[in-house]
């Protein structure tokens, strides 16, 4: 296994059809590094939900990934509107996404619950009008 690797990505917020490209790149890198496919899939799914959220709610943002042999940490930072009620946002089925997002198969209120489900650690810091930082941790 390689030494600690750090990756940085900018997520473009104006093109929903491209959402997921960053998650795809990270998945490929983790596979190339030889991580367990189950772990890679968990990272990919949780990160993908986060990336979709960034594009839907916050006009994009930045993602930093730190890869160590035992642990993968993904920090997703945006300068969007923030989350008014985090407890509600964590509830399955609760969504503030608009109709256009739902037509694309998202906005069903499963994003944060899925991110929690697939990660070994989820931390959300959010401030109205300032933005949201989501940190996901995975045991490799």
């Amino acid at each position, binding site marked *: 296994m390689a030494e600690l690797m750090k990756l940085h990505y900018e997520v473009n917020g104006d093109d929903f*059809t491209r959402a997921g490209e960053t998650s795809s790149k990270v*998945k490929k890198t983790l596979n190339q590094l030889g991580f367990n496919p189950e772990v890679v899939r968990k990272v*990919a*799914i949780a990160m*993908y939900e986060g990336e979709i959220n960034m594009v839907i709610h916050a006009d994009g943002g930045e993602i930093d990934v730190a890869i160590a042999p035992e642990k993968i940490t993904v920090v997703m930072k945006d300068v969007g509107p923030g989350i008014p009620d985090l407890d509600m946002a964590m509830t399955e089925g609760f969504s503030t996404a608009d109709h256009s997002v739902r037509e694309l*198969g*998202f906005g069903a*209120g499963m994003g944060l*619950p899925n991110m929690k*489900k697939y990660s070994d650690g989820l931390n959300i810091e959010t401030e109205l009008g300032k933005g949201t930082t989501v940190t996901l941790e995975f045991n490799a």
Partner: protein
Amino acid sequence: MSVGDRTEKIMKLSKIKEILDAEVLTGADMLETDVDSAFGSDLMSDVLAFVNDRVLLLTGLVNPQVVRTAEMMDISAIVFVRGKQPDENVIALAEAKGIAILTTAHTMYVACGRLYNEGLTGDEKEV
């Protein structure tokens, strides 16, 4: 697959193509691929809530996020129901990711029913 009761559920894409009267849009070289469970949904986040190996995804959505969802979940094949035709970008993305795409004129309900009837049942194990 060695476990006895799972063996019956394994189905090749070629068989799925036949059961659904489907057309292969990309991945014609993948028809020998096995799947052993299926998921039918237009909600990608619902799809993302279930993880299994060798899953077939049936959906009425034809946007690139369907292919992305399949990619993240290691899903090897997607069936678009009710005659939906994805645009060339969606097909190209699937091709690049090694994901087969089939399209069938059958509705979601009938397509799922046909496959279930032939032994491809769903696996409702949630993570």
